[in-house]
């Protein structure tokens, strides 16, 4: 299996062209057919694989941090007559199951990032659909605030997965069509069963796109609309961006080390221990977030068999609170960006199909923003006693609640992690609010319901070993299903629907013989033979 790196730089993009012309930026898709991340498929007609989307993710990220002067982003294709043909089917057909699902997850996180930039960063995205736009291609357009479609009497938008392929079209596209663009459900049904999609007036009438633009005026109208969006933007005037320097990362077979984050990989037990260090220099929160984000992506993509992630912290809780205050109370654009970036990284953790266990020990700094890491975990264990290797020490583990835990970093369901943990328990949440900004001991943390267990120093090592071994013995699929259920209580949102379905339906449909069997849709695709479906509805 290829080891995937998420490091990209605009000057080395193989599939995208990023052009900044303040207040606009042009992001043009120009996929190199021979530039697939893995051998065995050609990326024809601007179809994409993970490598193409990693570059898109990088571009979206850099636009936010490096280009505060950009107020609207035009996402379009550099190819004639085709905007994007969607995810490459040969790539999907040749990929192992976990790769397919992980790929869909990542592309949706990128799309969420585009929506997040539009909503929270005043960097408004506009899709300039200049040719055929199908499947994942339309999903990219759907992530944008506005969709302009070239009116050449032949270009269409389509979600043809059902009629053309026979696998799940629910990688976000259908949900965005009905929930975001509010396409009527009967029309959505007609749309998603038409292999050739919908063009022209009907596409506008059905709200699949916002506007038709004649071919000759296309560029000009697109630019004009982008300028109108830019005028609406809250982005600051005259700000200067920061540069996202390459990450300082060292990788061995057992360890991935960054300045602020370390991961120890134990392949025998299938456990990764992730340690996040508290602030030691300025700019810690952004630096740590970038490292954590990169680590989550690398582990998710390259280490599918390491099924349990143990999260630890090291450092001074006060320093964490001081660093977080700077960003949380900051009114500048950069503080805003860092805040939302950390939010997105936490969300990535929320939708990661790994068992997440927080270990809160003496010397740790689960305060405020870092307490969110523990709250994102499926279970929290807090040591009630001295450090294991120094029983004479007075040092004790603590956790600290702060403003950061009450709505600054909502989950995909729109709730804070505390609201999700104590769903509907308003009195309890009020009580927690009153306990802000002070160190809570293991006993208090148990009483307040912030940790699962607080074993003492006699039991700690055995207890944790048994928890981790017990976890590793369970069915990974069952765990994925269980965790995804528990993590998202309460209301459904577009995001929870998308990721819930990725977790459940895709796990099911992608492995069904109808899709993956020897005569299934993915195997038969491109052979000129039709898939054979088991006709029983389940």
């Amino acid at each position, binding site marked *: 299996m290829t080891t995937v790196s998420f490091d990209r730089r605009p000057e080395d993009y193989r599939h995208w062209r990023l052009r900044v012309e303040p207040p606009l930026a042009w992001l043009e898709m120009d996929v190199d057919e021979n530039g697939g991340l893995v051998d065995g498929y050609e990326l024809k007609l601007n179809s994409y694989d993970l490598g193409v989307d990693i570059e898109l993710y990088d571009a979206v990220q850099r636009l936010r941090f490096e280009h505060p002067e950009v107020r609207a982003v035009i996402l379009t294709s550099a190819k004639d007559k085709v905007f994007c043909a969607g995810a490459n089917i040969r790539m999907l057909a040749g990929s192992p199951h976990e790769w397919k699902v992980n790929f869909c997850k990542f592309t949706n996180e990128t799309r969420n990032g585009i929506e997040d930039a539009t909503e929270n960063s005043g960097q408004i995205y506009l899709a300039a659909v200049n040719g055929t736009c199908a499947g994942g291609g339309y999903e990219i357009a759907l992530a944008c605030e506005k969709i302009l479609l070239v009116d050449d009497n032949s270009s269409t938008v389509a979600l043809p997965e059902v009629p053309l392929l026979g696998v799940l079209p629910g990688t976000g596209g259908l949900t965005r069509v009905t929930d975001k663009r509010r396409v009527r459900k009967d029309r959505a049904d007609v749309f998603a069963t038409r292999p050739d999609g919908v063009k022209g007036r009907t596409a506008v009438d059905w709200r699949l796109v916002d506007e038709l633009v004649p*071919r000759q005026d296309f560029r000009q109208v697109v630019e004009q609309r982008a300028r109108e969006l830019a005028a609406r933007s809250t982005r600051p005037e005259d700000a200067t961006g920061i540069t996202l320097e390459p990450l300082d990362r060292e990788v061995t077979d057992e360890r991935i080390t960054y300045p602020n984050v370390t991961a120890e990989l134990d392949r025998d037990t299938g456990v990764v221990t992730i340690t996040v260090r508290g602030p030691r220099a300025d700019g810690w929160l952004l630096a740590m977030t970038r490292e954590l984000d990169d680590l989550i992506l690398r582990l998710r993509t390259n280490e599918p068999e390491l099924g349990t992630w143990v999260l630890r912290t090291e450092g001074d809780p006060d320093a964490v609170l001081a660093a977080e205050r700077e960003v949380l109370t900051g009114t500048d654009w950069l503080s805003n960006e860092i805040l939302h970036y950390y939010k997105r990284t936490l969300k990535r953790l929320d939708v990661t199909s790994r068992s997440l266990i927080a270990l809160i020990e003496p010397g740790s700094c689960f305060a405020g923003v870092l307490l969110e890491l523990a709250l994102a975990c499926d279970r929290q264990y807090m040591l009630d006693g001295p450090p294991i290797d120094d029983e004479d020490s007075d040092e004790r583990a603590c956790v600290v609640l702060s403003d950061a835990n009450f709505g600054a970093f909502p989950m995909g369901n729109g709730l804070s992690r505390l609201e999700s943990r104590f769903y509907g328990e308003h009195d309890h949440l009020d009580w927690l609010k009153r306990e802000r900004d002070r160190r809570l001991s293991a006993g208090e943390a148990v009483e307040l319901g912030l940790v699962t267990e607080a074993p003492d120093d006699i039991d700690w090592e055995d207890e944790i070993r048994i928890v981790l071994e017990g976890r590793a013995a369970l069915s990974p699929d069952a765990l994925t299903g269980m965790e995804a259920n528990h993590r998202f209580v309460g209301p459904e949102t577009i995001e929870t629907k998308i990721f819930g379905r990725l977790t459940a339906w895709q796990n099911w449909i992608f492995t069904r013989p109808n899709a993956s069997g020897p005569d299934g849709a993915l195997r038969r695709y491109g052979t000129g033979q039709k898939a054979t479906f088991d006709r029983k509805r389940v």
Partner: protein
Amino acid sequence: MPTRIDYDAKIPNNVELSDNRRLQRALEGWQPKFMNWWAEMGPALETQGVYLRTAVSVGREGWAHFDHVVPQDYRWGIFLSERDPDRRIAFGEHRGEPAWQQVPGEYRADLQRLIVIQGDTEPASVEQQKLLGLTAPSLYDLRNLFQVNVEEGRHLWAMVYLLHAYFGKEGREEAEALLYRNSGSPDTPRILGAFNEETADWLAFYMFTYFTDRDGKYQLGTLKESAFDPLSRTCEFMLKEEAHHMFVGTTGVDRVVTRSAELIREHDTMDIASHGGIPLDLIQRYLNFHYTVSLDLFGSETSTNAANYYTSGLKGRWMETRRKDDHQLTDDAATLEKPQPDGTWTTEEMQKILLLNLDLRGEYIADCESGVKRWNKILGDAGIDFRFRLPHPGFNRKVGINSGHHITPDGTIVDEATWERGRKHWLPSDEDLTFVRSLMHPVYERGKIASWVAPPRQGINGKPFDYEYVYL
């Protein structure tokens, strides 16, 4: 029993349109839009009557009735070949089942797409040829141009009939869109590239009708095999009309070559431009261009769409029923020649079903060769050494595995700079086009003909060359 065409109806037809009120109403709604399109996008030259051939029935004899007709009064209509009630599907996974009289829901979108693409090419050539009447080399040629144009218009009707009769509201919308896309329009161009190229002069027209209409013949030939019987019958009848277009092309190029050969003999030089003739190497460059643009119409050498259409029974091979194999093609192999970046050619063995476009193109190339032989015979008989040849199928291609490579007419893979240096020897240059255009003066006098082309050996329907084919 040959079905007569009902010319008393508003829309002439042999599909008993009067029995189908809904369809009749739909087509009668489309008719004025078609007439507007013809008035706006059809031939620029107005005439008082053209000696046209009109079909009166679809049987062996009935499709050739001649009379002077004012083109806009031509009775376009809907003619399908006779139905064979026992026809069975000849290929794909439905092989052996009775041909479909209705569109199966499963294949509705694919069939519609195939018909729309075919339909889009028909009016396109009328648009491309719009101005040619203004520079016709003789009344005979002018008549042929109109004949081709009215029949292309009828081919549009044929496809529109299918869209209206079998594809509901969506089909009607697509039928209307066929009139709103226009050849070379910057906003709404025709779907396929070759149909957005200009047909600026009569040599181009002859080449177009020889090479590009011949592509049409092969495409219609594959659709004639379709399991969807109405499409099959429509295409069968269109093929009869298409034959005449190719006749215009074959004899047109014949006559240009004949005239050039005469001038070469007369003045004892190959350089006949100054004597009002078209030099042979320039004709070769035209041939190179039109041939390669037409090869692009066959699509990519490997095509899963074509394979899917075949498996589903939507589109067969040329002369499918005469082929001696299993008509499934999943177990057969064929080879594909591929250009490599290092300048060599390699062959790859692939499933035959993925190479159906290549199969059809092979049939087409063999057919094109016959014309080249004919023209070379004219040169041979005149004692001239020059020989025309078809360029290598990789030359000047925008579609398929050869696009992106620089391949010379003899099949050598070269670098871009070398190719660009050769371009003016291989393809018509601006000077070539300007020169040919300078020869294009209309000759509307009975029995007279332009300097650069020989008169035909025979007139139309036994009439002499100096017959008044067109009333101006």
